[in-house]
């Protein structure tokens, strides 16, 4: 087959169209006046108003944002520690094992992660009495666990690129290892830290499967509420909610991407 110079652009357009066209439709229909999801009844913002008067959705959204913020922060701290160990550890064989184990949650089916964490939490509750029952704590722990894997991968890549002589220079000027880490290493990889935190945040925000396994009564996250609502039939306020979530995740993505670019451009001079 002869490849025209349009072949790949056309294929890419079809692919992206398939991906983004439904989202565009969803955004447009979130401003639909009609109560019927599939019939256009004129422009209106009424579903947004209704959304902000629905306590169930507002509670779930607040909870989700809290869980996302806390779990992303825990994931960042643990992930940076893991990445430092992986990049700076001298013992090669152990490093290979560790690297594999740190990256495994990236490819692990969420059902398995969720189920195994549920079993762990039940066992812990039984033997230690903590975390007692399932709820916000268990969701935070679960999200921190898989968020950490993503943080590790991102921070590790940045650390590996980092010029080691910067740290040597700091040490040479009298900085002890902890001071070197705080005054030179962390600021140098800061853009990657921002990007990693944002990624962990958005992953937590839209996780349904793992949260479903480890949540308990009274701790329904936003995706769980949306999912249960959709099962009763799609109502237009879900479209409005989805549009807002796209906005938040999209903003997070843009900021994260911009920070990543900055970290690439800000190579040592």
């Amino acid at each position, binding site marked *: 087959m002869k490849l025209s110079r349009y072949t790949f652009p056309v294929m890419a357009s079809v692919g992206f169209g398939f991906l983004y066209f439904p989202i565009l439709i969803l955004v447009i229909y979130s401003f639909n006046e009609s109560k019927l999801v599939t019939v256009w009844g004129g422009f209106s913002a009424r579903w947004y108003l209704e959304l902000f008067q629905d306590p169930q959705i507002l509670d779930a959204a607040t909870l989700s944002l809290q869980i996302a913020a806390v779990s992303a922060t825990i994931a960042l701290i643990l992930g940076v520690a893991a990445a430092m160990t992986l990049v700076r550890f001298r013992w090669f064989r152990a490093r290979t094992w560790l690297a594999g184990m740190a990256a495994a949650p990236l490819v692990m089916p969420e059902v398995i992660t969720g189920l195994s964490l549920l079993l762990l939490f039940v066992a812990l509750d039984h033997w230690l009495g903590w975390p007692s029952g399932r709820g916000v704590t268990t969701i935070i722990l679960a999200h921190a666990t898989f968020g950490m894997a993503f943080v590790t991968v991102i921070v590790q890549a940045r650390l590996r690129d980092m010029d080691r002589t910067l740290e*040597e*220079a700091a040490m*040479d*000027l009298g900085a002890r290892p902890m001071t070197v880490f705080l005054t030179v290493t962390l*600021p140098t990889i800061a853009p990657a830290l921002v990007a990693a935190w944002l990624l962990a945040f958005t992953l937590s925000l839209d996780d349904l499967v793992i949260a479903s396994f480890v949540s308990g009564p009274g701790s329904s996250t936003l995706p769980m509420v949306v999912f249960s609502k959709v099962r009763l039939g799609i109502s237009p306020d879900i479209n409005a909610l989805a549009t807002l979530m796209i906005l938040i995740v999209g903003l997070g993505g843009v900021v994260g991407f911009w920070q990543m670019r900055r970290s690439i451009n800000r190579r040592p*001079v």
Partner: protein
Amino acid sequence: MSSNPSMVKKWLDPEAKPFLEFRGVTKSFDGIPAVRDVNLAIYQNELFCLLGGSGSGKTTLLRILAGFESPTEGSVWIDGVDITNVPAYERPVNMMFQSYALFPHMSVFDNVAYGLKRDGLPKSEIAVRVSELLELVRLSAFANRKPDQLSGGQRQRVALARALAKRPKVLLLDEPLGALDKNLREDTQLELIKIQESLGMTFIVVTHDQEEAMTLATRIGVMDEGYLVQTDEPHTIYEYPNSAYVADFIGDINLFECVVTDNEAGELSLYASQLDTAIELDGPVTGAVNQTLWYAVRPEKMRLTRDPSDAVNALKGVVHEIAYLGDFSVYWVDLDCGPRVRVSRPNISRLDDFAEAWGEEVWITWDGSAGVVLSQ
């Protein structure tokens, strides 16, 4: 320029105490030695150059001194104290890195102040000292810039100021002028010497550039494959290299294999098999009969002539190539007996006799004192 006239040559005084010492230092990476059994004493106020090709171990030796690598064997001493196991952040040495390693997220001021802050000096004193240092390297106007807003030469001066800030006993400089262009480099070399003399510090400079080493150094240590092969003043290294490697590495040289044919009361007779001629020597040389030696003559110590009648050593050949370099010209001459030799000739006159001597038959002559005899 090559040595400070006000400085006593302490290395010639057997009573003088070395300021810095490597004692039997060996460093292996995964069993492969990078530095082998180096013994070296450096004295206060010296500007010592470690010279060698890439992979010769000179940078590793410097990193051992800075504390970034610990020696596999041997010890390092500064001012009578064994610092082999002292961590880098407690050593009285500071380093100027080849890549400069300026902190990209800090201003020029904060870069220079970094070491002083670690010492817990009061802010007012830090400000005073940093501005003094920036004045010394002529960068006062750039205090608030970030490193990526500076030129290569300016970054290099920030790196120097930062390394000088803590007034270390020893300053280590790893290829300090490597990234600068030629003119800036020559200016900076003189500036470095001036700074070193005015601050009275001991400088250790790693370089692969022999001209730079000759310009800067009080003494040069030549390294090859991890060994420190010769340590001497620049003049001695050039005129009296102790091995064929050093002779060839520092400057250009013509090397001929010779055999000792006679040893009468310390007066050696040499026969160069390659040249099929006996070589006349001035001065004492040691060697046993039938020993193989190297005879080495620098190109500028050989002369071109058409009449060899009163020369001590003379060989006939044909000019193969002439390279005109402005201040002097290099002639490659194919000798009748085989080897090709290099002769350099200062262009004293604009109408040089040999300027267009391609293919011409010429004689090469040199004095008995022009060459050196090397045993390895």
